[in-house]
């Protein structure tokens, strides 16, 4: 062990130990901890970002499917509404038709009635007229018939003859 190369010197041992331990403490406090913490923070933030991107993607997909659903629903609703509207229209039309028919029938019936009425009135009037005329005619005839005693006698005779004694 004479070779100075392989004989450790006390001074170098002392200084190496001192320098290394001081360096380790300094670097641990001011370098390794902040660096590793920053790297770790960055890692987690990247992971978070990736996760949130994934979440966003999933959300978008969900939204898309939701939209699809909504659209389908809307379409179905529209169809239903159309159908309903059509039904309502048909109903309204049908109702209108029946009301119109009824009204028409009513009008016709009223017209018929009034015609009947007018007819009856006309007939009555006619009858009255005929009666008046008949009376006038009969008056004239009677006046004429009863103008002479002969004729009166002839009538009485006739009536008497008709009466006959039963």
């Amino acid at each position: 062990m004479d070779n100075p190369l392989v004989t450790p010197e006390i001074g170098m041992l002392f200084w190496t130990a001192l320098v290394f331990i001081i360096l380790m403490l300094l670097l641990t406090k001011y370098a390794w901890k902040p660096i590793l913490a920053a790297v770790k923070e960055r890692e987690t933030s990247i992971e978070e970002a990736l996760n949130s991107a994934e979440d966003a993607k999933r959300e978008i997909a969900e939204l898309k499917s939701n939209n699809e659903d909504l659209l389908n629903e809307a379409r179905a609703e529209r169809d239903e509404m159309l159908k309903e509207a059509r039904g309502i229209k048909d109903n309204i039309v049908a109702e209108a038709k029946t009301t119109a028919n009824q009204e028409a029938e009513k009008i016709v019936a009223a017209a018929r009635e009034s015609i009947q009425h007018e007819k009856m009135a006309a007939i009555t009037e006619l009858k009255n007229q005929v009666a008046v005329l008949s009376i006038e005619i009969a008056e004239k005839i009677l006046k004429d018939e009863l103008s002479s005693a002969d004729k009166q006698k002839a009538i009485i005779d006739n009536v008497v003859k008709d009466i006959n004694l039963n």
Partner: protein
Amino acid sequence: MRSILITITIMLFSLSLLANETEHKAVSSKDEKYNPVPPIMEHISDAHSWHIVGGGHDAIALPLPVILWTDNGLVVFMSSEFHHDTKGHHIVARNGLNLVNYHEKIYVLNDGEEHLDIDEEGKVANVRPIDISITKNVFGMLISMLIVCLVFFKAARSYKGGIKAPKGIASFMEPLVLFVKDDIALQNIGEKHHRRFVPFLLTAFFFIWFNNLLGLIPIPGFSGANITGNIAFTLVLSTITLLLTNLNGNKQYWKHVFWMPGAPVPIKIFLIPIELIGLIAKPFALMIRLFANMTAGHIVVLSLVSLIFIFKSIYMSAVAVPFTLFISVLELLVALLQAYVFTMLSALFIGSAVAEHH
């Protein structure tokens, strides 16, 4: 960006060659066989001053503080007081002690003597005070500590103010930090326990890596000290791994050491010493691996440069320079690889100690 990096690398290495060349000139000018071992050893060993250029008393070097704990108390002075002397001739008197620098080791001269007490085998009998000087390696280590702190404090600051992508230096360091945390700590220690050891592994990885890289920069004042190729440095780091492993060992771990399950009783007894040696051998291997790899890298680079001086021919540089460049680039890779291997094996050992049932 890449081309800039390559240019800088090449520039640095060519500078290293220049530095080496000027340094060796003084030695090679003597008309004798050039011995590359002393300058190489000087480069990879620790020193009390940071040698820049020149030799002998004309050398330019960065003086560093010498801190000694002697029998007469604490002694502090600048290494320039030795006047570049490493032969034990220049005496510095402090606290009633005569101190000399002999091959970058500081000795106390015996009372009344002017020279070291050296026997025929070259062993020095003088007393060595406890030397906790800021040597070249310590200074380099402090520089790299500063750089690591600057880099990571800046990186950490860029994370403030909400979540955003990493920018600038953080974008370069973050993958490495995450690599150490996920591929080294998490994979070898397991989800449950790894968090506790992440600071140690991260610090070890980057400290070793930066020191390795700084050791490759040949410009004095930046670094170039063979810090990770210093056995004391690797000893401290592997001791921390040893302590972390064995202090956190669970029942399962100790059972494997002292009473290997599933083996017949004689083999169990036989395995105890082997396992006990293994406890020490694993961190010991960790220590040797890093030390030897980095030292070997430095030696190879310097040996290739030395070829020019061994052959005493400028044309040799046509071989030496490309090879040096190649090895230096390889060393850039090795710098990272050894930091990785050290951290990885530390994590593996710690993982084996805290692992739950298999």
